[in-house]
């Protein structure tokens, strides 16, 4: 569906993205993860043609995206609104979104406004941070765009609203499958939504994999240090903690059946690493110069 080739972007002398290669498939939910300043928003802005790139290609259904109405009308990027439009009333912004998005679902928008209990007569400026975010979420969901991108979609939302959004997103995704990219820092909350994860770090995409594969490949081993050391000697260690004689080790890689049996026999506890922790450990290790799936 979306193909990015050798994409480069810099702001003046500050390089933000280097040689990005990425393929986004149809009808999948992607999580775009990265530390602050990793270039996530820049990448999303480039995909939606909101900023200019230095070099490279971004193609949607094999057509260049930039200045191509046929391509950009299929992309909806939900992010913080530009300051200049915050004087406008919410109902006007929603009315304009209705005019511009070709697949706009007005009935669904009305349903979402009620669900989120949003006062559409207020100016955007007068809304709380959470409610401003909700306006964006309504636009993203009601746009029914083939590629819907949410950049920090839960900014300022309380837990109840965040879970309402996740549920609505999944509900709508099941009824109307489309491609969704979510860039967020609240990884564990949305981990169950993601089918694939893309990690952007230090200007590059350092990992792109199915969430299930990532989970299968990453383990915490917890037990006596001397017993653990026997299994981890050939493993890629991404985390280490020690409490007296007890050691907790995070490994990235597969465990053989013998190793699992050995662990059980020696009271070594094996558990999956939660996605958020895995992301932290991987990015820390990537920063040290390791790349985990050789994507680039």
């Amino acid at each position, binding site marked *: 569906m979306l193909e990015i080739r050798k994409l480069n972007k810099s702001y003046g002398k500050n390089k933000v993205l280097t040689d990005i290669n990425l393929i986004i498939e149809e009808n999948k939910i992607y999580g775009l993860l990265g530390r602050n300043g990793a270039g996530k928003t820049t990448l999303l802005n480039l995909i939606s*043609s909101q900023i*200019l790139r230095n070099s490279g290609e971004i193609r949607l259904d094999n057509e260049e995206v930039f200045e191509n109405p046929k391509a950009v009308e299929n992309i909806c990027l939900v992010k913080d609104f530009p300051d200049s439009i915050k004087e406008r009333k919410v109902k006007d912004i929603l009315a304009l979104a209705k005019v511009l998005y070709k697949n706009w679902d007005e009935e669904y928008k009305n349903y979402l406004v009620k669900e989120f209990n949003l006062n559409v007569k207020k100016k955007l400026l007068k809304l709380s941070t959470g409610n401003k975010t909700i306006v964006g979420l309504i636009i993203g969901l009601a746009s029914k765009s083939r590629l819907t991108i949410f950049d920090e979609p839960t900014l300022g939302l309380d837990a109840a609203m965040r879970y309402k959004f996740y549920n609505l997103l999944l509900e709508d995704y099941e009824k109307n499958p489309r491609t969704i990219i979510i860039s967020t820092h609240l990884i564990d909350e949305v981990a169950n939504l993601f089918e694939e994860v893309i990690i952007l770090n230090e200007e590059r995409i350092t990992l792109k994999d199915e969430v299930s594969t990532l989970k299968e490949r990453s383990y915490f081993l917890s037990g006596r240090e001397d017993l653990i050391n026997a299994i981890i000697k050939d493993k890629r260690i991404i985390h280490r903690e020690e409490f007296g004689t007890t050691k907790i080790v995070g490994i990235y890689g597969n465990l053989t059946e013998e190793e699992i049996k050995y662990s059980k026999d020696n009271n070594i506890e094996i558990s999956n690493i939660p996605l958020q922790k895995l992301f932290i450990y991987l990015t820390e290790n990537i920063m040290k110069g390791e790349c985990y799936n050789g994507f680039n």
Partner: protein
Amino acid sequence: MDSTKRVLKFQTYGMKKSVGVFWSVLLTINIFTYILIGYFNSNIRIGIFDSRTNTFSIVAGNIMPIFIFLIVYGIVMYHEDFALALNFGVTRKDFYKSVIFNNLLVILVFSVIQSTLQVIDKNIMGLLGYKPMVEFSIFNISTDNIWFIMLTLALLFLTIASITNLLGILQYRFGYKLWIGLGVVFTVGQIMGNFTIKTIIALSEILLWLQGKLHYPTVLIIGFAIIIICYILGYFQIKKANIKK
């Protein structure tokens, strides 16, 4: 509905309200001035008064607010609408095409209203006992027909709109740097060329003199040249514009 039509609809959405409010205020002021002069014999002169010919026109004073409206409209078009349109998946080219169409529409509405008002004003001023102002350099209310006046005003407004459109784009792209740049140019001009208020007055007098001497076709060609140059320059600037926070 294709993307160009959707952008047009998007721009017309905001235009109707702002044009409506602007003309409501302006017409109220015009009517209020007629009442002040007619009923209360007030000495307040809201309009244009030529002491040499002793002629007076109330609605001719609308030109300055129209210019100001077009400046604000040009800046808001990019400061607000462009950012929003880009955010909602509109291409720069489609947006620009619809800006030009939108400008034409605004200018058409303005020239129809203003030329009709000019003709009505001539009659009302006569009824109120004033000598109406009929000669406006580029057209004459008494001798020229309404279509000619309308087209002339449309050309004048479109020339202004093309300049303010370019100003709006430059303001969007360069922000405060544009005004600093203009300030520097003005200051340097003042220092280097002894650019004083007297010089500005002298220049404007030369322009007025030229306006009287130039034939209508020449004015027409100059007007069209400014319009084309400004819109082309504007396109080259906007096609490189990024969305701003």
